[in-house]
């Protein structure tokens, strides 16, 4: 067994060497979000630069504050590692040279120091308002280590959880995970230990574990970030889970839209096999286990366990009735555990630090931490991790910095298409499974979308229904037809053609769909309608009784008008209008012809004087009458 420890010792030594090497190191946030923000040309520039200035470049995952991307961290011997955000390619040379050659830390450009003794004028990154209120357990390594380097993971005490696990009996492992209070992070929050226990108890010798990496909620990217930043944590969790239930084979079902995540998994799996952490006789424990990656092909319903299983077996991803549960009859008809990426990513630390340590975080019913993607109309967008039970206020204002552009906080949408819209009034409610369910939403996988006064909740409900209606597999009539009917009613309301009676119909359909559908997709699809209709009834009423969209989103209910006093006659709207609806002479107030206007929003978005207004159609009609 000295093998494992000598491997760890070596890994730690090489990590230390990297931290203390004479040659400067530049860490680049190169997860998908960083790439989208433009890190790759920056890396190219750094490679060019390394021909002149000796430096090493290390690609790391996402450290969290997406709004600051692209992010680079510069490590200099005997000084602090400084993170710089919103870096442009053309600034790279200057930033690097200033710090490395001239010793100027460029206080104004820095986000914070990552390590070292600190630099005057630059706060520690860990004191950054977005970071300091977080508890990073699952995301501990994200943005810090090179996800393609197994030694980095080992240096962070990686695989120690597995080492501990294989020294125990599988039942002991299950007990620890149960006692820690870990619940499924994919949405429903089923106790993980219990799921394992059921599967272990099945007599069949062939068992399977599936890692559900088919993160389908629009507006959620926590799982992708974790895989891209720290794939080994998920894989270690998977091996521990396999050991606990007695599985010999595991599948990772990963969205095909996540090519980088798949690449990270592939590399990590190869390295694990090489190091004896996967394959035969793992860590000399007589335990054999191997993993295969299956690419999902784009079907939201495959987040449902039985649909996912059908898809793994090469079929249409249609859910089936339960029981038998996957723990009894799963993939290839064998007992199967399906765990979410984050659930598995949490398992190693529980085995490493113990159940009591983990259970310190969170609430009585919801233990531990949860990752969220914080997006929408918020100042600091990004990937965050907080103990369960943290209030919405802390998440949105302390961590997220409040609503963008100082607008009014209206609501959050949590849990994606299966979740709900929670109004600002509940801002002091804690984020945990039970509270969210009480409010009509669900935890879901952890997407939080912040909305302000300029978001129409009827339109938002329509948006989600459009999604679930399209993604319904069509097996259950209430889901296939009911969601379509809900969508038709919402379309009617957003066109100003709805009536108060439609609300009753909405409620009735919503009830039928949720009661009459087989799987989670159908059961939860009406949640966005129910929550918005409950909490924002006034807004619905405005649409049907006054033919008004208070947020000015529903295009049939407002027109664009130029405010003659504010208009400076710059002609931008006239030049950009695709239909010639905006007319006017230079330096004279312009006008918009509502007959030819297609409401493309271009004039509104581009008017430098903010002279273009959205006016309720009814208002104009009543004036002309």
């Amino acid at each position: 067994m000295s093998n494992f420890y000598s491997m760890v010792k070596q890994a730690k030594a090489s990590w230390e060497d990297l931290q203390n090497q004479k040659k400067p190191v530049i860490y680049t946030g190169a997860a998908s979000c960083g790439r989208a923000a433009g890190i790759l040309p920056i890396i190219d520039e750094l490679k060019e630069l390394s021909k002149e200035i000796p430096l090493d470049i290390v690609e790391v995952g996402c450290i969290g504050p997406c709004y600051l991307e692209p992010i680079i961290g510069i490590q200099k011997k005997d000084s602090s590692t400084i993170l710089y955000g919103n870096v442009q390619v053309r600034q790279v040379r200057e930033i690097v040279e200033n710090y490395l050659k001239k010793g100027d830390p460029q206080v104004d450009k820095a986000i914070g120091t990552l390590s070292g003794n600190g630099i005057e004028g630059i706060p520690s990154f860990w004191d950054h308002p977005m970071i300091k209120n977080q508890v990073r357990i699952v995301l501990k390594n994200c943005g810090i280590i090179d996800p393609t380097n197994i030694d980095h993971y080992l240096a962070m005490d990686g695989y120690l959880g597995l080492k501990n696990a294989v020294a125990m009996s599988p039942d002991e492992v299950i007990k620890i995970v149960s006692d820690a209070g870990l619940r499924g992070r994919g949405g429903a929050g089923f106790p993980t230990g219990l799921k394992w226990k059921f599967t272990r108890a099945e007599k069949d010798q062939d068992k399977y574990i599936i890692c559900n990496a088919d993160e389908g909620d629009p507006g959620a990217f926590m799982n992708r970030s974790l895989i891209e930043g720290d794939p080994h944590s998920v894989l270690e969790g998977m091996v521990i889970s396999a050991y606990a239930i007695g599985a010999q084979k595991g599948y990772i079902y990963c969205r095909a839209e996540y090519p980088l995540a798949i690449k990270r998994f592939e590399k990590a799996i190869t390295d694990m096999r090489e190091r004896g952490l996967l394959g035969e006789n793992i860590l000399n424990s007589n335990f054999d286990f191997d993993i295969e990656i299956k690419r999902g092909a784009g079907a939201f319903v495959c987040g449902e366990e039985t649909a996912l299983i059908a898809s793994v077996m090469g079929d249409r991803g249609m859910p089936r009735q339960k029981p038998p549960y996957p723990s009894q009859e799963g993939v290839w008809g064998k007992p199967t555990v399906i765990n979410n990426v984050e659930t598995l990513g949490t398992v190693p630390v529980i085995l490493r630090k113990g159940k009591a340590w983990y259970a310190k975080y969170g609430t009585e019913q919801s233990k531990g931490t949860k990752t969220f993607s914080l997006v929408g109309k918020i100042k600091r967008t990004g990937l965050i991790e907080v103990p369960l039970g943290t209030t919405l206020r802390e998440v949105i204002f302390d961590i997220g910095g409040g609503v963008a552009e100082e607008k009014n906080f209206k609501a959050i949408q949590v849990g994606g298409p299966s979740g709900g819209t929670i109004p600002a009034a509940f801002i002091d409610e804690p984020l945990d499974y039970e509270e969210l369910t009480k409010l009509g939403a669900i935890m879901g996988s952890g997407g939080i979308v912040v909305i302000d006064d300029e978001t129409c909740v009827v339109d938002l409900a329509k948006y989600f229904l459009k999604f679930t209606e399209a993604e319904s597999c069509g097996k259950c009539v209430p889901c296939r037809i009911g969601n379509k009917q809900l969508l038709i009613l919402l379309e009617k309301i957003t066109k100003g053609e709805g009536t108060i009676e439609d609300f009753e119909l909405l409620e009735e359909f919503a009830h039928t769909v949720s009661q009459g559908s087989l799987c989670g997709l159908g059961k939860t699809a009406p949640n966005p309608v129910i929550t918005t209709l409950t909490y924002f009834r006034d807004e619905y009423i405005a649409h049907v009784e006054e033919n008004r969209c208070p947020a000015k989103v529903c295009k049939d209910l407002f027109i664009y008008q130029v405010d003659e006093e504010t208009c400076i006659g710059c002609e931008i709207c006239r030049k950009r209008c695709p239909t010639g609806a905006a007319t006017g002479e230079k330096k004279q107030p312009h006008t918009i012809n509502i007959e030819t206007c297609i409401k493309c929003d271009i004039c509104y978005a581009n008017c430098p004087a903010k002279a273009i207004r959205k006016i309720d159609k009814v208002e104009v009609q009543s004036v002309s009458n």
Partner: protein
Amino acid sequence: MSTSSLRKTSAQDFELNSNAKQKISKIIAASNHDPKNLIQILQDLQDEFNYLPEKIISHIAKELKISEHHIFGVATFYSQFKFIKPGKHIIRVCMGTACHVLGAQSLLDNLSRDLGIDSGETTKDELFSLESVYCLGCCALAPVMVIDDDVYGSMTAAKVNRILRKYRKVAKPKQKKSGAIKK
């Protein structure tokens, strides 16, 4: 996948020559000729040919000894698979929640109007295909549009024309690859 776009497949002329057959055989062999790996086979085929022409489906049905119905049943279930030849540039508009609340629909509408096609279609000159996708996962940059591999963040309707112009300018008549896709 709508049936209307399926119908269009028959109108397309894909030549299943020996070169293509060889590639297909290789892909099927990599998945052990096993229908249980059908999704993977279809994914690999699409990676190779950019879409799944009807002739390929018929061919693999024989090779795998399963019905074409079954293959179409599986393939049309998943949004990833395409049955009509995509354009030279693929424009994907993210319709994730964050993008939606920041105006993605308006962006898509304007693209659709500018290109004269709906989402899921390809322009007549085969230069652009327009797709809407649910969440590309870079919500901080919302609304997001991706053309091929280039990501355009904080998109507005007004920027559409200018960006498309760039692609239209460099567009040259598509070169025919020998036998791969014949027009």
